[in-house]
């Protein structure tokens, strides 16, 4: 009988520090939530964390919780409770997982950190640069918990970014200051704000360098590694801890390159992952690709936490630019150019598009892009159907066969 190949992975030593940073983040929030020692702002993952830190808020990111619900495979059981409240199974499964988690009082934080529940917010701050769903998500909590809701409404499908968008978004950030100050009970400390911007900028530079290390042949790490190690860039953005973490991780990756250490032993093929991770299936997917001697070297997703336009010298304006220039906000021609640039940088042999059922905004296969890019770059593309959290939308056997067939095709 043909045996399934067993796969072993080389551990990234920095993982221990990553886990500690994440644990400290949640314990600090939990302590503040229980004692009221600090104000807590909930913030969308690419919302204005730096501004909030400038007012002394601790910042909690529900999307991170959504990813944890997905990764622990709790989502599929919890989503129906949100559906029953009128939130469709077709909308963002971070939203429905998280609301279901709240309704059922079940959180992975309990299992992982022995924390009873997610921290209570004093204010909810969104940025629709991700999608409109984040607004509806936070609005649910605003009604449920009776906390103020403030947000930024981003322009969409932008080609070249002009001063109109930058000024508008910068002004929206500035306009939310008085309301946030009222909740914080203190004035915006410009020095602290600028310091957070500088840390974010530095974190972005380091995170970019970590991601770009995958351009090496063989790659020192995979997309699946990066989905874990991006945690500090998400939850600790704007802090020294995040900078410290990537100053630890980057040299390790660089050393691997120097030593010729491959994340996937005998790397034969390199793939680009376009779209959301399938959080509940990271391990089986990682195993499958490794057994096929294929390294998923890069993704748009992990690249989305690079904000290297942030500039402490022009706080609001640079935030306007940094939070608008993200891939997800841009038009199709920009996105195609972006992936083309990645093709040059990461030297991949094929692109896998993940069509996430509940995340149309981050499923870029739906308007013919795979076909256009395949023709332009001369490489094959594959689309698999799935979802970020809702595993009811994922046929594992079919996805596995598709991936295996795709790699077979690369070998012909």
């Amino acid at each position, binding site marked *: 009988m*043909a045996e399934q190949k067993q796969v072993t992975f080389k551990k990234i030593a920095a993982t221990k520090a990553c886990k500690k940073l994440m644990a400290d983040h949640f314990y600090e929030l939990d302590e503040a939530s229980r004692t009221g020692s600090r104000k807590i702002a909930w913030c969308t993952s690419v919302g204005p964390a730096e501004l909030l830190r400038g007012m002394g808020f601790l910042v909690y990111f529900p999307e991170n919780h959504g990813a944890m619900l997905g990764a622990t495979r709790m989502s599929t059981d919890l989503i129906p409770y949100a559906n029953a409240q009128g939130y469709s199974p077709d909308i963002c499964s971070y939203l429905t997982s998280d609301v279901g988690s709240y309704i059922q009082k079940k959180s992975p934080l309990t299992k992982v950190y022995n924390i009873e529940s997610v921290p209570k917010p004093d204010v909810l701050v969104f940025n629709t640069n991700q999608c409109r769903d984040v607004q509806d998500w936070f609005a649910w909590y605003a009604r449920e918990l009776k906390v103020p809701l403030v947000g930024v409404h981003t322009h969409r499908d932008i080609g070249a970014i002009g001063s109109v968008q930058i000024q508008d978004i910068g002004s929206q950030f500035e306009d939310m200051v008085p309301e946030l100050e009222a909740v914080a009970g203190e004035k915006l400390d410009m020095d602290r704000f600028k310091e957070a911007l500088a840390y974010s900028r530095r974190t972005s530079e380091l995170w970019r360098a970590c991601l770009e290390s995958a351009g090496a042949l063989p790659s020192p790490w995979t997309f699946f590694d990066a989905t874990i190690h991006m945690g500090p860039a998400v939850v600790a953005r704007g802090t020294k801890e995040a900078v410290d973490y990537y100053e630890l991780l980057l040299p390790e990756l660089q050393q691997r390159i120097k030593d010729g250490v491959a994340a996937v032993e005998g790397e034969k093929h390199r793939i680009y992952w376009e779209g959301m991770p399938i959080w509940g299936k990271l391990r089986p997917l990682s195993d499958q690709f490794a057994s096929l001697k294929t390294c998923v070297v890069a993704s748009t997703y992990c690249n989305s936490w690079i904000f290297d336009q942030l500039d402490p010298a022009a706080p609001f304006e640079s935030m306007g630019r940094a939070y608008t220039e993200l891939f997800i906000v841009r038009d199709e021609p920009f996105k195609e150019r972006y992936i083309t640039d990645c093709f040059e940088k990461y030297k991949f042999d094929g692109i896998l598009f993940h069509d996430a059922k509940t995340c149309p905004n981050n499923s870029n296969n739906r308007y013919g892009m795979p076909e256009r890019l395949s023709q332009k770059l001369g490489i094959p593309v594959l689309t698999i159907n799935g979802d970020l959290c809702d595993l009811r939308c994922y046929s594992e056997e079919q996805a596995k066969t598709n991936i295996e067939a795709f790699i077979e095709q690369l070998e*012909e």
Partner: protein
Amino acid sequence: MDSKLYAGVDIGASRTKVAILNGDKQLIGYSVRKSGTDFGKTADMGLVDSLKMAGAAGKNVAGCVSTGYGRNNVSFSQETKTEIGCHAKGCYHYFPMAMTIIDIGGQDNKIIKVDAKGRRINFKMNRKCAAGTGAFLEEMAMRLDIPLEEMDALARQSEEMVELGSYCTVFSGTEVLEKIRQGKTVAAIVKGLFYSVIKRVLEMDSLTDKVAMTGGVVAHNPYLIQMVEETTQKKILVPEHPQLTGAVGAALFAMEAQ
């Protein structure tokens, strides 16, 4: 002549197919069985049957490759390949040219494109939904209370064809009930079901170069091929045993591996 025998086993969602090739790549034995719940046992029985048909009962095969959903459950195979690879291989064996292959299986539809050298250049599988697959026709035959094997003759005899619009097997079932209520004939409904299968397949990808069709649905419903030809205005190539194409491809891989 190479007197060795090569086996290909294709364990599909519905049927398990075994093909035995001789050293001249001729199909000399085969078997088609329900996959059932014990894939390994079904494959074993299929091998026995097909070797018997090949006049080689009890002989060992020199190599075996397995494919399909149950590809990892075959005790006597040395290697696995995906059904996409095996259908391309098998089809190119019969029609060595650049082509688009349409495979309609029990639970999967595939569109595979190969170049003039038989290399795969692209493939697409149906999304999660089973509409447009063999499972869809099985479900509808049950709803219409007709034997599956009578569908082809019924569709062929009907001048009329009902329109069925839904993507979904369950909703299509509701549409069928509506057509029955309207007094449409079963034959016209079956023809509409065939057309529904064709629509689901044709929306998966464009058809380039020559077009070949494989799979169990095609094997048992030749009228569907005629309907595809009428719809696409293209001549459709069909291997002699369309349901065995994947198993033949697997056996060819086994031969290459030796």
